[in-house]
């Protein structure tokens, strides 16, 4: 979580408010699998579904593991692509 007036804090996942330091701490512990980082830290679980944080974290993982960025496996992008209200979805069944 972010303290006020701290300019050295880098937010990596802005939906879930996860900092670069938190991500790096997990990577240092040996969690170098994006799937695991997502489940333990909630990175990419917010409304943007990782559109912002995934490329940033993949860079961190590439740096930490020495692998090229293109070889870092991504997590599954799940539907809906953009958040939709339950009320809207509930109204959808009769409009076939």
């Amino acid at each position, binding site marked *: 979580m972010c303290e006020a007036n701290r300019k050295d804090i880098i937010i990596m996942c802005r939906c879930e408010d996860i900092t670069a330091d938190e991500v790096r701490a997990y990577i240092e512990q040996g969690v170098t699998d994006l799937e695991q980082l997502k489940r333990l830290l909630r990175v990419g679980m917010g*409304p943007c579904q990782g559109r912002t944080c995934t490329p940033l974290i993949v860079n961190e993982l590439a740096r930490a593991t020495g692998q090229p960025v293109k070889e870092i496996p991504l997590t599954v992008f799940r539907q809906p692509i953009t958040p939709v209200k339950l009320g809207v979805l509930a109204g959808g069944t009769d409009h076939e």
Partner: protein
Amino acid sequence: MNRTADYVIIGGGVIGCSIAYNLAKKGTKNIVLIEKKYLTSGATGRCGAGIRMQFGTETNCLLAKNSIEMFEHLEEELAYQGSIEFKQGGYLLLAYTEKMVEQFHKNLGVQHKLGIPSRWVTPEEAKEIVPHLNTQGLLGATFCGKDGHCNPFKTTDAYAKAAQRLGVEIITYAEVIRLLANDGKITGVETSRGVIETPAVILCAGSYSRDLAATIGIELPLTPERHQILVTEPVEMMQGPMVMSFYHGLYCQQVPHGSFVMGLGDPNEPKEYNQNGSWQFLHEMAAKVTFILPPLANLRVIRQWAGLYDLTPDRQQILGSVPGIEGFHLAAGFSGHGFMIAPMTGKLMAEHILGEQTSLPISMFDFTRFARGELYVEPSVV
């Protein structure tokens, strides 16, 4: 990777990790846990994250009650550096038919004998517990305040880390291809990264346990069945308990993070290894949940996913060993309620594997019950 181990646990879900921890805690050495992808990649990480004592059979009530008592102290027990997000907001089980009312009263009788603090509530009392509940058509409900939620990823991580500290080796991204047996004895497992020779295998690979058991000619009556879930954006806390309706096949809970997690069982679901979400689910889930809990219509769905129940014919887990094959132990077929009974299951399986007297009887969960036709049906599952 050719090597040996005293025990090989197949499956890195909460059950496998709990068994690994409990075996190691008893001083057992040289345990290897193999997971084909990452920890919680199967049913554990896809489950609805609810935990409850309100079951219909005495043994499930006991397994669940003991497990919840263990969840209460799990962070300390496992010395976890973090939170397993345990929440006891209760479970409110809704009754819409006379038959359900009758069954729920029967269940309460079983639960009260075992000291489970569940109770019958009228529709008015149910509305006091969940103020935004639509009581239309509702005949009553049962409520147990000790039930609630726990984070499956964190819980599994806690068990895995504690097991590793006790010497358990966890190998991820290694798939067991087949079991090896000779002369009525387990001799090892063949994995995508080589053979591990071992006299004991503990199979807890969810639905995939069926395929692995088949490699040594054992037919497990397990069928995979897809169940779907969605999660909403987080909002301020507004709903304490899990609301569950067997009539609608639905459950819905606000987790400590603030988001609502909800799922639906579809009786017409084909029995196959399909883990993809469908748009039909979104519509059906939305229609049903906004009827029971109308204000949720304003919440946005962020994500949906699916996972597999490993269903047995009586919707009860298979715990124990396979007769005729020495060293072959099973903990599978949890039929959708494995996560919530994982703490006690791990303890019981460790006791059973080491030949000790188990803290609770597990013989009714034996694999041979299907051949004998002695099904042991749990009435209260979605």
